[in-house]
């Protein structure tokens, strides 16, 4: 308020006599010069390293371009090949299916696990700080290392931890090919992802739970609400905003993450875990290095993320005020 008042004060002092001489302060704001100098490095990153690549991705998607050679303009050819062509469209539609299944399954598990973890940690008990530190530790482990560790635990021979346990306890007599079987591989990847990112959800939910005033629960208890009633009528509504924000953030990150799939299965077996970033990587960078087609694959999915980002931005800026 004070700042705004002072700004208009300066504006009022500007000579009104010469309307033809434009006052940059009035036109661009009181501190425009300082502001743009302060913002310059940040804008350089925003424009040069995010907006420009985005635009160049769109241009790339209209070209047939291999790494290191000039591109050939093909108009909508890449899009047509990708959606209906012979060599890629089957893989592409498979990646759509896999990405949706992967993201939804991981999000649902993370929501359930994260909420359960947060509710457990929200209670008072001895050693809570230590337990919380332990539960959240996977958050700090580099995702690539999480992937490697699970790959080792899923090892299809008798020395992989899961097979070792399954054999010793007599759950199975045959070795289970966690990552090499078409039906299991995607779920195996989902479990590793859930292990790594449940702490993030739990942290968000815990912060949300601690913001719900305790009096609400006391009042409900006096009114005779049982545990489930209190959960449904106080906890869930209290967390609604955080649930929506976390789910959107997590959807963006999960759908576009590549580290786990890259390490665990490299998209296989037979495309069972080929999420779209993995397909974009394989087509655009590894193998044939078809940059134009790789960019097209990412771009086809982009509208979905633009919608998500639009709503998420509105929410983040709204809770900011």
């Amino acid at each position: 308020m004070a700042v705004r008042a002072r700004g208009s004060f300066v504006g009022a002092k500007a000579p009104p006599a010469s309307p033809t001489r434009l006052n940059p302060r009035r036109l661009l704001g009181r501190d425009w010069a300082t502001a743009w100098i302060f913002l310059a490095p940040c804008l350089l990153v925003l424009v040069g390293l995010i907006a420009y690549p985005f635009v160049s991705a769109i241009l790339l998607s209209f070209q047939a371009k291999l790494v290191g050679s000039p591109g050939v303009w093909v108009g909508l050819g890449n899009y047509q090949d990708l959606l209906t062509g012979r060599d890629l469209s089957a893989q592409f539609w498979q990646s759509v299916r896999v990405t949706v299944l992967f993201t939804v399954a991981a999000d649902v598990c993370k929501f359930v696990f994260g909420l359960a973890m947060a509710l457990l940690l929200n209670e008072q008990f001895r050693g809570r700080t230590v337990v919380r530190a332990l539960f959240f530790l996977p958050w700090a482990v580099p995702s690539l290392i999480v992937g490697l560790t699970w790959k080792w635990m899923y090892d299809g021979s008798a020395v992989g931890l899961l097979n070792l346990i399954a054999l010793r306890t007599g759950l199975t007599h045959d070795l289970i090919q966690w990552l090499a079987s078409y039906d299991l591989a995607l779920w195996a990847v989902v479990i590793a992802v859930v292990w790594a990112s449940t702490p993030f959800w739990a942290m968000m939910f815990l912060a949300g739970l601690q913001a719900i005033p305790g009096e609400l629960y006391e009042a409900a208890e006096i009114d005779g609400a049982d545990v489930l009633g209190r959960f449904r009528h106080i906890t869930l509504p209290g967390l609604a905003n955080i649930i929506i924000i976390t789910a959107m953030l997590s959807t963006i990150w999960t759908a576009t993450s590549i580290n786990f799939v890259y390490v665990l299965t490299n998209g296989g077996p037979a495309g069972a875990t080929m999420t779209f970033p993995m397909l974009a990587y394989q087509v655009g960078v590894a193998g044939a290095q078809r940059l134009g087609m790789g960019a097209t694959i990412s771009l086809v999915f982009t509208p979905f993320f633009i919608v998500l980002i639009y709503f998420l931005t509105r929410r983040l800026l709204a809770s900011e005020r």
Partner: protein
Amino acid sequence: MSRSRARLVRRLVHTMGLLLFGVWTIVPLYWIVVTSIKPNLLIYREASLFPSQITGDHFAFVLARTPFLHYIQNSVVVTLVTTSLAMIIGTLAAYAIVRLNFVGRPWVARAVVVTYLVPGSLLFIPMFQVIYSLGLIDNIVGLIVTYLTFTVPFATWMMIGYFRNVPSELEDAALIDGCSRVQALARIMVPIALPALAVVALFAFTLSWNEFLYALVFIGSDSQKTLTLGLIGLVRGDTFPWGPMMAASLMGTLPPALVYLVSQRWVVSGLAAGSVKG
């Protein structure tokens, strides 16, 4: 009577829940540690859950026979430079957005949030072109440049949230006394914002240390590899030497894990603040 029984059931469910999550969290971590100290015999031929024998061979192998220390050094350089740059750039930008009066302010703020949310793996192919045309392929400088794309918007967004809550009177007094904006920022705002800067540093550090995709796409030679990429390089053909790989994984996890354990109070509040209310 039934009340105390209800309490008992509640206690039981709570303890069971903690136990389940405890096992779920510990098992993979345990498997990293135990694999890294088991002799190969106990990893492969006579696989054991609780080794009867331990060895430091895998650590010795990784440290002496692979460029692991060099990878770590690259990761440290990339992480420190990225984090410092992000803190400086983010603080300047956030200050301008919160405190300075200029046309277009809300648009800049919106652009920061939007770019914070744009996932890097959507842009790695055009980014490859940008880095290629800058001549920074296979060079850690190229990694530093690209890591700014996720650290700067995040840092700016965090600092915006913090600066908003600093009363402007503090700074107005200094400005009236003849301080310049730069002086006001450096002498008044930055000291107040140290906790927020610590959170920014913590996250920028973790994100940069853990990054893998850009490194995979941009870097080829051993001399420029960071830790995450170097780890993959330990694979020989189709064989994963699990002992050395888990030893290297353990050493590569220690820096972010220790940073997290030391500052976990800030991690939790910082994460919630960053995505919920700036």
